Every structure is written in C-alpha cells, then in structure tokens.
C-alpha cells in the first residue's frame, strides 16, 4: 500500500459518542429495518452484570437512541429475521436471555419460547422424588447422595445445595423447593438465522439456537416449534458462534465454533455434527465468508486463519495486536467481501482474502463491530468499544479497493514440503542412536573438545603471523585484488575501518616479496586517516621478472602449494609487530601460445 493511498481515509467519521456507556458483546448488535419502512436501525443489548440493574435492549435510529427497554435476564445474542410474508414486511427481533427466546415485533414483545430443558439424571430425579413423597430428610444424607453424581450432570438447584456451606441454610433451601422437581436449564449460548426457501433480502428465515449442552435447534419461523434438533459434536462441545450457509429446505451447512476449540459442521438431516477443524488456541471470533464459504477464524494468539469449507487451511496471518472481534464487510456494489478485524488499542484492519487492504481506528478497543445499512446510508460501520463508546463510520461511496498491492505480502506456502521417504537405513541408524545414545554423546563431546583445541591451535598459529582477513580488535579489514594477465600486474589493497565511531590513524602498509620473482613500484605506503566505516584503496604495480634462472633455481623458495606470493603487512608507526598481515597468491603469468 503506498503512502498516498493511506493519506486519505476511505471512511467518514459520522458520529462518536464517548458517553454512551454501552456494554455490548459480539453478536449482540444488529442492523435491521425495525419498522418496515426501509429505515435501518441499530438494535443492541446493553449488559448490566450488577444484581440491581437490569440489562437493556436499546434501539438507535440514526445516531439517536429512540427506544430503551429492560430485559428480564442477561441477554446473550440478538437476531432479526422475517417470519412471514405478510405486508408490510416487518422483521422479528429475537433476544435470547437464559434459556428463553423473546421475540419482538415493532419493538413490542409478542412471543416467548423456551428451549426444552434437559432430563435430570436418574439418580437425581429419584432423590428428589423420594424427598417430595417423604417431606422429611437429613441434609447430610442428601449431600452424600448428590456427591455421587458428577457435578456437571446436576441441575442448578442441586449444584447450589452443594455450594452452600452451613447445614442450616441447606435445610432451609431444600424446604423452600421441596414441592417441585428441579429442572436442568438449557441455556442459550448463541443464535443465528438461516434462509428457509429462497436467497432474498426479504426471505423468510429460521432461527437457529445453540445451547450450553451442545444442542442445536432450528425453529419454525411461524409457530416457533422445533423443526430440527441435533447435537453439535460427538464429544462435549459448547457452541458459542453459529454461522450458516445454504437454504433450510434444500441443503445447508451450519458451522459451529465451540469453546473447546472445535469447529463443527452440521448439514441437512444430520443428527450430530462433525468436528471439522480443531484449533489449539482459543477461538475469539469466526465469520463465514459467503460465496466461497471460507471460514475465517481469529484466535487468542493474534492469529487470523482461513479454512475452506472442508477444513483445509488456506492461509494464516498474524496481526499486530490481539484480536477482539471480527465482522464481515460485504460490499455488494463491487462484489467483494472483506473481514474487519478489531484489535486491542482500537485498530481495525480490513482484510480481503489474506491481504490487508485498509484500516481505520476506533477510540479504544472495539468490542462489537457491525457493518451494514443505517438509516438511508448503505455502508456504515458501527463500533461499540469496551469503554462504552459508540462510533459510526460511513464508507465513502468513492472508496476504491481495486488497486491492491499483492506483491508486498509474501505467499504463504500452503503445501507441505515434499519430504523423502523414510528409508530402512534411517530406521536402523535411529535404532543405533537410541541404543547407544550415551556413548555417542560422550564421543561427540570429546571430539568437540578436541576440535576446539585444534581450532585454537590453528588460530594461535595465525595470530602469531597476524594473517587473516581482518583484525577485530583493531576493527580493520583488508582485502586484496590482483588485476592483469602478467607479467605486469596491479595489486589493489582495500583497507576498511569497520569501527563505526573511531578513526584509524598512523598506519602504514609494507609489501614483501622475493626480488627474484617480482619488482614492485612501491614497497611502503603510508595510510592517511581513515574515517569511521569508510575504506581506503591503494595500488602498487608489480612486474614479474622473467628470467630463465628464476624458474629452476628457486623452486625450493616457492610456497608449499607452488604459487608465488606477495606478503602485505599493516603496521602502526611505533609498533614493530604488524597488526594485520596477508598473503596474496599471485597468479602465474599466462603465456600466449
């Protein structure tokens, strides 16, 4: 993304109310045409977790709150859907509180449906039945009986009894409720809707409910009876996000994210879902991208992952901050789906596929992001932050997302590396490794010590004649170059000051060569001051003396490898020891035949 693109934001800041004081969780905010006149309202729940204040259902018309009513219980999700084909088309708003679903039409409550409660375990119901018959009990016996049943299988009443401390309170509590059987509430954890027969803006939708005990219910939109019931997964899994695609009457897929890290799939006619993906980290949020049906999952470790509908991983990206919520941003006019990623500190990134295409900022960490029409405006992003601020951002109609720079992002390798087959030999060798691990380790350590000694010796050898490419203590580096085909050569020496702070002064370079082989133009060069991190180049011309005798008489004086050399010493004025020495292997003169 170029800088010029970034300088002008694609978003208009429409309204921000820092004093709204809202506490809203993901999936508790929707944009819906609540009165049926095409004027979209924002419907949110405002959670109050204190005992004395009740949570509220609030409706914003534009940026103004027009409606505010109390809810009986803590809400956990809000949906809206068209229940029938009657004109005018007014959607039903559903608010799940506890195990009940409250349905509102025209902002007036008109129906309440309750999720069937779970059957009690046999032992527990037996216990309570006897209590009801006898009307007489010993609280210690009851505690003992209840403790035999796993805690998680108990009804909330029995769990409460186990949590009470004094026997007196227990007795009082039991007396209070002795005439009724306890029930095991199946609390609603999440909701969604699925289109029933057609894909249409105004099509009839069926609500889907996920509960604490892992049940998924699909309800009839007219009489709210259960159309289909299924379990989320074959293992214990608590759904907390439901996303769906397809049509209820034809074929559908329900993707369920569970608190345990599973992502399960449920299709038409299935009584039990199948685990599709298992994520080791906690799932923060999930969206299903329409069209491709790609599942985009945000995890607690700043990860954003994308999977196909079959559960194959497509890509992973790491965000800069931890993710708090996701929101699908459908842009119908350019046929594009993006995902808004809300992160800690208020940054909101927009991803198209795996590419980061845009960003915007919220006043603080966003808690919920919704995108859709508000009032007459088509594309509005509504953000409710953790601090209670509500903020409206309008996407400019001229916003252009087409010129994205794909090259800046490296392509993640989707396929695993092709590894060769594990050979039989490998297995044999690994067997040997396992059997004599101690011996192998000891030998290796001994050899390593020996290697250190050899290395140290060789280094001392080099240190004594100061050969090497550089002197790290003095921070200088020397490199040499020989140009020419011979018998005339040019030797270029580069002396580099590696130290970034200090200058090099008082150096001189001395050349040493056998006069039988070479004559040099200069033998001593005084090096001027070398500023930090710069280098100094010097050159000397070398003439090879081509006498017949030289080739025969002085074979013994050649270097062991049989090459002729010129030695270079870098010295300080006052020190007799060179600080750096190098040997230049001179190439033999090329005879032109």
């Amino acid at each position, binding site marked *: 993304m170029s800088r010029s693109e970034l300088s002008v934001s694609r978003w208009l800041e429409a309204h921000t109310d820092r004093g709204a004081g809202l506490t809203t969780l993901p999936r508790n905010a929707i944009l819906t045409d609540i009165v049926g006149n095409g004027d979209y309202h924002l419907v949110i729940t405002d959670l109050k977790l204190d005992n004395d204040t009740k949570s509220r259902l609030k409706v914003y018309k534009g940026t103004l709150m027009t409606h505010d009513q109390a809810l009986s219980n803590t809400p956990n999700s809000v949906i809206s859907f068209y229940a029938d084909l009657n004109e005018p088309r007014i959607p039903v708003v559903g608010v799940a509180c506890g195990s009940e679903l409250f349905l509102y039409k025209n902002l007036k409550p008109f129906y309440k449906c309750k999720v069937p409660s779970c059957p009690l375990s046999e032992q527990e119901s037996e216990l309570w039945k006897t209590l009801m018959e006898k009307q007489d009990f010993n609280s210690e016996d009851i505690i003992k009986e209840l403790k035999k049943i796993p805690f998680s299988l108990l009804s909330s009443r029995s769990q409460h009894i186990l949590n009470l401390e004094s026997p007196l309170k227990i007795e009082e509590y039991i007396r209070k409720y002795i005439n009724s059987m306890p029930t095991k509430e199946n609390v609603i954890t999440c909701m969604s809707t699925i289109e029933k027969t057609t894909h249409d803006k105004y099509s009839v939708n069926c609500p889907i409910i996920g509960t604490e005990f892992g049940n998924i219910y699909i309800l009839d939109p007219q009489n709210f009876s259960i159309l289909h019931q299924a379990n989320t997964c074959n293992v214990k899994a608590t759904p907390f996000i439901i996303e769906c695609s397809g049509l209820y009457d034809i074929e559908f897929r329900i993707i369920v994210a569970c608190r345990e890290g599973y992502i399960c799939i449920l299709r038409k006619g299935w009584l039990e879902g199948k685990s599709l993906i298992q994520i080791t980290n906690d799932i923060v949020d999930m969206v299903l991208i329409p069209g491709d049906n790609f599942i985009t999952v945000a995890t607690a470790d700043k990860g954003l992952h994308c999977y196909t509908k079959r559960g194959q991983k497509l890509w992973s990206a790491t965000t800069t901050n931890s993710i708090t919520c996701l929101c699908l941003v459908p842009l119908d006019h350019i046929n594009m789906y993006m995902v808004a990623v809300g992160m800690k500190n208020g940054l909101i990134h927009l991803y198209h596929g795996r590419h980061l295409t845009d960003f915007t900022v919220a006043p603080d960490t966003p808690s919920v992001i919704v995108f859709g029409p508000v009032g007459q405006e088509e594309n509005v992003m509504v953000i409710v932050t953790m601090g209670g601020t509500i903020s409206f951002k309008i996407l400019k109609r001229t916003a252009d997302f087409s010129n994205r720079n794909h090259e800046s992002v490296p392509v993640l390798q989707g396929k695993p590396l092709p590894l060769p087959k594990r050979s039989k030999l490998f297995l044999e060798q690994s067997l040997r490794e396992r059997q004599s691990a101690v011996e192998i380790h000891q030998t290796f350590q001994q050899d390593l010590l020996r*290697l250190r000694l050899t290395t140290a010796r060789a280094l001392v050898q080099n240190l004594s004649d100061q050969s090497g*490419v550089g002197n790290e203590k003095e921070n200088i580096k020397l490199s040499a*170059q020989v140009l020419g085909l011979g018998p005339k050569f040019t030797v270029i020496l580069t002396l580099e000051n590696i130290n970034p702070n200090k200058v090099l002064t008082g150096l001189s370079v001395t050349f040493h060569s056998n006069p039988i082989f070479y004559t040099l133009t200069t033998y001593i060069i005084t090096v001027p001051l070398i500023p930090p991190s710069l280098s100094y180049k010097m050159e000397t011309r070398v003439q090879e003396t081509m006498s017949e005798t030289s080739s025969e008489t002085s074979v013994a004086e050649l270097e062991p490898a049989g090459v002729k050399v010129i030695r270079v010493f870098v010295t300080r004025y006052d020190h007799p020891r060179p600080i750096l020495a190098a040997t230049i292997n001179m190439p*033999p003169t090329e005879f032109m035949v």
Partner: protein
Amino acid sequence: MDPMYLALSLFRRRHYDKCIDICTSILDKQPLDQAAWCLKMRALTQRVYVDDLESEESPQDDVLDENVVASAPRPGTSLKSTSTAVPFTALGARPRTATGRPISGVVRPGTQTGRPGSALDRLKTSRGTTAQSARAIRLGTAAMLTQKDGPFIQVSRLNLAKYAKIKTLNKPLFEYLFYHEGDIRNAMELAVLATQHCEFKDWYWKIQLAKCYSALNLIRDAEQQIRSALKQHPHIESYIRLIRIYIRLDQPLSAISLCKQGLEVFPNDVSIMTELARLTEALNEPQSSVKYYRSIVIEDAMNTEAIACIGMYHFYNNQPELALRYYRRVLSMGAHSPELYNNLGLCCLYSQQLDLTLACFQRALDLATDPLIKADVWYNLSYVAIAAGDIGLAIQCLNLCLVADPTHASAFNNLAVLHHRSGKPHLAKAYFTSAREHQPELPEPGINLEVLQDA
C-alpha cells in the same frame, strides 16, 4: 637374451625407463634400427601419456570465441547460463563453487579449469590459472630434463612427408609428437600428410586431426573430421570427442542427442552414459542424471564417480543416511581424499551419527593440503559447531576458512550472520559487503544487506 625382446617385455610390463635405456643402447649400436626407434618413441610417449579425454580441457576464451551462437540462450539450452542463474529444482539450489560448478564428490574433466574464469574475469579477480597450454609446456620441459644429451628426436629436422608414408611408423611418431613433445603444429602436419597418403580412408587420422584442431581451438573443423570418422567407423572415443566438442560449443542438447545416438550403437556403454549423466546434471536435471548414474553402477559396480554422484544426490535430497552408505562404499574401494572424508563427516552430522562426524572431519583436515579444500573443510566444521550450539567456535572455524581462502563468499556471509547475532551489526555489514564483492551472484549477502539496511 635378445635386447630387443627384453625391451619389448619391459614395455609390456610398463617398465618404461628401463625399456628406454635398452632402446637407447640398441640405437647407439645401430642408429637406423627402426624397431628400436619406434619402441623408444612409444615408451617415451607412454611414460608421459595423459588420457586427454579424462584430463582437464583447455579453457575457452570467451572474448575471442567466434563460435558463440546466441548471447542470451533460451533456458535449458546452454551450460554457461546455468552458472549465473541457478534455477530452483525440486532439490532446491545446490551449493556451487565460486565458478558455478555444483559441488560433488568427484573432480571431473572440465570442471576445474573453470576456476579462473575467462580472461575477462581474470582482469577482475585474483585467482591463479592452470591452462592446457601451460600444462603442455610443463610436460615438455619435464620430459626434456631427463635427457641430458639433447632431445631424442630433433623435430625441426624431421622429414615429416617421408615418415607419413610409412604405415608402421607414422602413428607412433604422431603420438610422440602430440603427447611427448606437445608440438601440436608438427603433429597436425604429420596427420594431414598421413591422411592424404591413405586417401582419407583411415578413421584414425581423422580423429587425430580433430584432436589437433580442437587443441588449436578450430572446433568446427574438428567436428567435421569426427563426423566423417564416425561414418567410417563408429567408435566410443569418437563419440565422446564429438560430445566434448558440442559441450565446448555450448550446445548441450545436441550433445545429449549424440549421447543417445551413441548408446544405440554401444548399448549400456559406461563412458557414454557418464557423459550423459554429467550433461544432465549440468543442465540441472538431477533426477535424470542420477538415473543414468544408477545404470552406470549396474554395468560397473566400481565406478567411483557414479557412486559418489548418487551419494551426493541423496545428500541433497535430504537422505543423508543413504548418502553415507554410498560414500562408505567409495571409501572401502580405496579412495582416500580430504573431500571424501569431508563428505562422510557431513553425512554423519546430518544423519545424527555424531560420534563419527568429527573423526571424519579430523581426517579431512589432516589430509587437506590444498588451501581451497582446507577452507571448505573449515567451512563445514563451522556447521558442526553451529549444530553443537557453539557460536564462538563457529566464528573461529569461519575465520580459519577465510585464512585459507580469503575469497570464500559463503563463509563471509555466514560470519556476518553470526556476528550480527552476537550484536556486532557494523562488523556484519562489512562482512556482508565483502561477501557480495567476492561473489555477486550469491543471493544471500544481498538479501541480508537489505534486511540490515531496513532494520
């Protein structure tokens, strides 16, 4: 015993020096004894004979090469372009020497002469050279030294036209001139006269002419001669010489098709298959190359080159344990070189046979006399040190590598990385820069420098 018979026997038993002595004494008595003269020539030739097929080739002077077909050949049709742009194969990029030769367990003809590069490169670098011309001169002088009383044959006084007509003498004389004297011009003159005399019917002379032509860099003429010789008599040597000529002309695809043609005439011939395997490897097709090497091993279970190359293939295919087996086979066949021990050490390291690793490297160090090989051993030892988690030792090893070979670009790069990790970015930068200077085509230093600049 008849001295002539004794000399022949000694020649057969390869006691060339003794054979030459006896021939000399015969010739002292009878200076015109053609048999002794011929035998002495052959003995002298054999004494210095170098298999010029398996020896190094003459370097190609790029500047003066008038046979270059295209300056920007299409991918896969040239051997020269591969050295600069290493394509990523399934095996990933293999390490190469400074001249772009894939590092393998064996030294092969034509792979070492590349070291100095072209004359143009020489103007920039500081490497020594070993050219064919220099070798020929060295051989000549070495032969001369042993003869105190002047050369055996005064070539300039030789009546070549006379000897070219004597069928029994012309071939030994040619070989003497070509191999012993290194006098290619006179040898060629003799070959021209001889082939004229036998009315161009003897394929031998055509091959010899081609040898002379290619030594004089007249490659297209050499190609013509061999083609015509092959028509008369298909011979493995002729095929291989022609293949070499195509490689010199940088036409690997024609060379490969010629190899396949040759294999139809001589099915499963080891030398032609070796050429084919080398060619495919040079074209970066390791899979097909290793296929040919495998068929070579089926024919000749003692072929060191093939075994070592299969080992190398397995090593870079992430199967060091298999590579180890092949290199051990080479070792048990009697090879004893620092490179082999170095490879064994690396295989041991990567197949987790740690107790043998350093023993192998120690041997390699002890055997390595060539500073370049010593540098490579120290370079590999730095990897052992890194694997053992001793960064200090690794830095020391790399420093020693650079002492042995101050132009080792990979060592500079690795040293820079290690220094950067130990918190000396300015040092790292200097080393990266010198790595890039020494081998600009190496991708790592450039990328690392960019990273350093961004940071």
